[in-house]
């Protein structure tokens, strides 16, 4: 990568730590499409936190649940043809792949809290 090399050379002339840090990371990883917080999974899971928090017993807190548990619950809602609760109505809007992405993201996210 000639561009990154040239860039490093140029930065060697700079003295502030912040600039050095920024360019070091730039050289190591010029683009990062999978930043978790900016990922497609994070965007999909954004719909959950408007209701699910550890603040009220009527809507379960999702903290500490693993991905398999979350996926299984969402699939149960999605594939129950007679279900009429809010979660039944919502789960039908997502593909199985999207459900897996949301579950993975929530499991990782809450594990980090």
């Amino acid at each position: 990568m000639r561009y990154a090399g040239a860039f490093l050379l140029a930065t060697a002339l700079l003295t502030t730590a912040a600039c050095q840090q920024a360019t070091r990371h730039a050289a190591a990883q010029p683009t990062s499409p999978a930043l978790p917080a900016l990922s497609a999974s994070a965007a999909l899971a954004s719909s959950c936190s408007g209701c699910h928090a550890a603040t009220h017993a009527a809507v379960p807190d999702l903290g500490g649940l693993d991905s398999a548990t979350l996926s299984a619950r969402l699939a149960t809602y999605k594939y129950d043809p007679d279900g009429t609760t809010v979660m039944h109505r919502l789960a039908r809007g997502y593909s199985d792949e999207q459900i897996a992405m949301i579950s993975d993201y929530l499991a990782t996210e809450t594990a980090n809290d």
Partner: protein
Amino acid sequence: MTERVSDTNRRHVLAGLGALAVPFVDFGTQAFAQTRARIVIVGGGFGGATAARSLRRLLPNADITLVEPNPTYTACPFSNLVVGGTRDISAQAFTYAPLVQTGITIIHDRAIEIDASRKEITLGGGASLTYDRLILSPGIDFRWGAIEGYDQSAAKRAPHAWKAGDQTVLLRDQLAAMEDGGLVVMSVPAPPFRCPPGPYERASLIANYLKTRKPRSKLLILDHQDRFSKMPLFKEAWAENYPDHLEWRGASDDGRVSRFDAASLTLSTDFDDIRADVANVIPPQKAGEIADRAGVADATGWCPINATSFESTLQNDIHVIGDATIAAPMPKSAFSANLQAKICAIAVARLVSDMAPEPTILANTCYSFVTPDQAVSISGVYSNALGQFSSIEGAGGLTPVGAMSNVRSAEAAQAEAWFAAITGEAFG
């Protein structure tokens, strides 16, 4: 060493840094984009406060500024319970102190001009602010005078109570002061307006108040619509709970109020002049005034956006979220504003990190109380691909008509949980 760098070289180096706007990977488990971008959010409601907090988390090094004139925010959701006398207004109030603690700069002033070409905001106090990207979450304003005679001074006599706060308390106090046997009249505007099921929730809770406290009184709803949100559920609840205390008159049954006389509290339709003891006039609406000033509102009075990025289709680098947007079929709800804020924050963080925004799936659920302890709901699931919102077929829908009362009690509890969660997420 630095004295050896010529001006030309220095500019080249700095330009290189800016253009890269490099994503930064830290050594913890979470990764963030590192940018010193200056992002300004105008409007501190569910949309704006959520956007500020989301961006603070996504862009720890960015300069995040929230412009909001009021020191506290009074939430509209659940304010109909205040009108109906079963909830205290203090439960609706939120401060911005938790936002300040996370390093968001809050300017308690009003944005009065926005120059999109210079990326500059003028504040009421005279100061100005510049931005790299601006998120407008201006909520709604009223089309004063659209109902002849209903202007700001008339609203002091006949509250709209469609922005929560003093107006909510005024309507509650007028109901409390009314003598038994009085007539309460509510005027509902033509869509689109903030909170599509809101007028009917309010009607339910006013009818409940009359039934329990002033049983010889009655509520008349004069409506510019013939069909409305959750109509079968409200009709069911009204027939069951308030057969003698609530009457609804739709548009085709002479429900459209075109004139209001504040002195005599008279609402006029095409065929009728109805004198009210308490009048609640919900006026026709448009995007918050600043949207027009910024040039992001179109001839409809609302803001067209690219649904994927929430960027205005009329001005570059200005994103619009919440009630002010043209986002149908997503409703103008606090749930939508909060979620749009989160999705918009991700889009903005990606843009300032040189990544394109990606389409996603958005959900919405609106709960409405039909009695103080029973609620019904409507849900929807939406795609924002290709810059357009569209409903996902087969998803969403209403609480079933004819559900057992324990279903509606459970939904009331879920509504409480939603309010706790969403206000926690928006205001901390």
